[in-house]
């Protein structure tokens, strides 16, 4: 029997809702270090994070982030490794990982492009931009494009975060160049990066648009 039940074509579907457990698996308790190998670098990174806080559990987010960098996504294996070092259960960490938008619990491309489609950006054409970027990257397994909520850069709307680098405002005709930069490992649209932008308040009020 298939797990897919879609009685309504427009009903929302959350992955996981329809999943039963696999009864052949053992219950998932805290992984035993004797049987869960963890790459040294990752272990060191997690242990360093744990040392920063009065309570080791506080390191859950940095540890998951480290595992995601290491494995590309928060795979079950990655989560088990974090669980093993932090002495937590993998379920606990899954609960944490699925809560936050930046953790990927499904495989994704090496490059993450978040396109802001929240109010300010969409007022400036973000929805169309997002669609364009998705099209341009379609079929490239290395690039994952997803629309994102406000990234805190409405001054450069419409904008995107490319592997953490903020760029904008992005014109529709710059999309191909942007994707090309990403594909070739170049900095994305260098002239449009937020880091180079002066504060609006320090510019003369000469009436020129800077949006």
């Amino acid at each position: 029997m298939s797990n897919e039940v879609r009685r309504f074509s427009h009903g929302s579907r959350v992955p996981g809702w329809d999943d039963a457990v696999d009864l052949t698996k053992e219950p998932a308790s805290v992984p035993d270090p004797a049987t869960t190998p963890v790459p040294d670098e990752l272990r060191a990174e997690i242990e360093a994070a744990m040392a920063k806080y009065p309570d080791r559990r506080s390191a859950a987010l940095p540890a998951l982030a480290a595992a995601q960098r290491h494995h590309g996504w928060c795979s079950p294996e990655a989560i088990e490794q974090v669980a093993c070092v932090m002495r937590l259960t993998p379920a606990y960490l899954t609960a944490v990982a699925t809560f936050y938008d930046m953790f990927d619990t499904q495989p994704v491309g090496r490059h993450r492009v978040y396109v802001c489609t929240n109010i300010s950006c969409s007022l400036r054409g973000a929805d169309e931009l997002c669609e364009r970027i998705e099209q341009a990257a379609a079929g490239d397994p290395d690039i994952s494009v997803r629309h994102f909520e406000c990234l805190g850069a409405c001054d450069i709307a419409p904008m995107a975060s490319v592997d953490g680098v903020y760029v904008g405002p992005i014109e529709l005709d710059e999309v191909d160049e942007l994707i090309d930069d990403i594909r070739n490992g170049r900095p994305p649209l260098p002239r449009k990066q937020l880091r180079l932008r002066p504060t609006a308040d320090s510019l003369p009020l000469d009436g020129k648009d800077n949006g």
Partner: protein
Amino acid sequence: MPRPEIKMITFSIDGREVQAPENTMLVDAAKYGDVEIPVFCYEPKLGQPVGACRMCLVEIEGIPKLQTACSTPVKDGMVVHTQTQRVHEAQEAVVEFLLLNHPLDCPVCDKGGECPLQDISFGWGGGRSRFVEPKRHFQKPLELSPLIAIDRERCILCYRCVRYSQEVSEDYQLVLQERGAASYVATFDGHPYVAPFSGNIVELCPVGALTSKPYRFRARPWDIEGAGTVCTMCPGQCNVTLTVRDDRVLRVLARDHEEVDDGWLCDRGRFAYQSFHVDERITSPLVRVDGELRPVPWDHALDVAADALKRAGGAVGALAGGGTTNEEGFLLQRIAREALGSPHLDSQRAPVDRRSLLAIGDPGLQATVPDIEYAHAVLVLDTEPVDEMAILDLRIRKGVRRRRVRLAVASARPSALDGNAALSVRFAPGGGPAFAAELVAAARGEAASDDARAVVDLLRGAGEDVVIVASERVGAALAALADALGLRDRDGAGLIVVPSSANGRGLREVGVLPDAGPGLAPVARPGLHAAEMARAGAEGELTAFWLHGVDPLRDLPYRERWEQALDRATDVIAHAAFLTEGIREHATVVFPVEAYAEKDGTLTHPDGRLQRVRPGIGLQGRNRYGWQVLADLGRRLGLELRVLTAGMALAEVAAAVPFYAGLTQDEIGGRGIRWQEREAASAYPRPEGLPDLAAPTVREGAGLRLGTFRSIWASPEVEHSPALRFLVPRQRVEMAPADADRLGLGDGQRVVVSANGSRVEATVTLRHAVPAGSVFLQDGLVRDAANTLTGSVVEIRPAVTSEVAG
């Protein structure tokens, strides 16, 4: 730790003045004024309220916003309204929100009729919905584990189950995934939710989202009756309510008893009721004819048994265990001693002499179960609560989590509580009594190991109220330790001694011991203890065995010797519920033993609470009450026992055990009573000094030291409950990675573990926390059990026959 004092205050609810204990949450305080405030997420057993469902909003004068009654402590002079327009609107709104995506499939829901969501929608809802969008629909029900089904459509995201998994059982296996409206209850990567206490979530779920697979669609609430009794599957003796339909037990629910179980059950207690109604149960007396056990009429079986026992002429070894009640144990020992003239009686797995038992059972040294929660420090010594007295595991966790009890664990095998402990120390397998002696030395300021000193420092540093939870086998040193720590006569401090069988304490106190009679009185002619009986049997000195709720091959050490003994014995009379190997192969007469659901009698909890086991269903098959069978046997052996009812049997017990004097079934009632709290307690015999404490164990030569343990899942009830069968343990050898490396073994590999020529097969399980030099095997298994090995130093090599992981 002193418990908080309760002060009564007066507040006003819906215009009436009501008295309630200060700082109780409004939801509970309202009940003092007969006002019900609806709740979903609030469940005080889960700890601090979370205020998530918003069902309990009420109006409090002086606070502009509506407040959640589940999280607002009541104060003197508070003025609360639950019947205003604003409150009604808010409650209706919450019900409407909760039902938006609820499938409203009550007609086919197992919870129907006993569902808080139905009741609250009926009582507080607006009775309409304005939601016209399609509801979420998903596949239902799905498996969450072999025991529990989950129907996520019905889930109202009240957080109860996940809070339970994180804050009560602390297995952290069940979690909420995703966020917001997309949240759902799940486990890691499709692993099943299997944990010793998982079934409690079924009872916690306020809707039909989590249901018990064994109970699904077996009955509707109006078909069933509830019957209160006590589970006899381990010394925890949790209070339960049996759901009975047509004289069958269909479900077991917790019957909250704060002093015993705190309202939780382990999965064995919750699901093993299935074994009451399986065909494999013995429900008729059996007699061996031509090598085969055959059903026979009662009179015949009783005659055969009486003849056999008579024939043995005093060379009878009698053992009691399992769920044997005080009454049964008492009658058994009377018959053995008075009618058979045999002093050979035992109810313990490892021998502890009378003087030691007298000392550790002293009322001045006893702690109660709730003391664990309020103690300054708890020491868990040479016992694994989750396996040996499951429910204590949750109590200890609760103490640590909610009341910051300092926990020390001293054990040979890594413990499930290590993660909660402020200090965990390991000793060599079998070294419990010796380590306890070291603790005594440390507590007295004498020379002791660093570990022992560290434990004592921790206990002393935490405060005066120390509770020691220890296995009975530690023996005499426990009393010495309690005294050295100054625990005598302290309220809230003392010992909780975990016996080796469910009613171990009761059996001891009614005299099922080789060197003590009822009330732990000395006996003129001490008999052999269990291990000596095995030897004596093997050597032909004992010719008959009388086994009440015990199968020595399964339950006791020295299996090989027991095999010889039972083999050689002319007669083996057994009272059993299942034909386990020892009974099947060796019994000459078998009397059926009632399931606890049929039983009538009393048990003594390890903290001294006498509790009643009461029949919830009629006797199955041709079963008879255990006390009745013994009385009939006694009569045939020339001993008139004067018991015609269970109450009369209890009266006999109470007359013989001075510190139980005057106890009646009525006095015990539904909640039990601790004998230490009754006047008769003063009749407890004066302690008579202690034997010498155990000397430190010395490692014998090379090789790996074998430790054994019996899993909570190693029991015939589990084997015979279809739902639990998947949990029946298979032998595995737990070892340290270093030892495995040295021997060239890997995790999951099949190996042969041998000692002195005896051998068992097992699968290697590497455990980081196992100390190098020690290995652990399980007891109580059908095959390859640890008691098959005849030595405590073992060799391990790869199994040749197969290399497949099992």
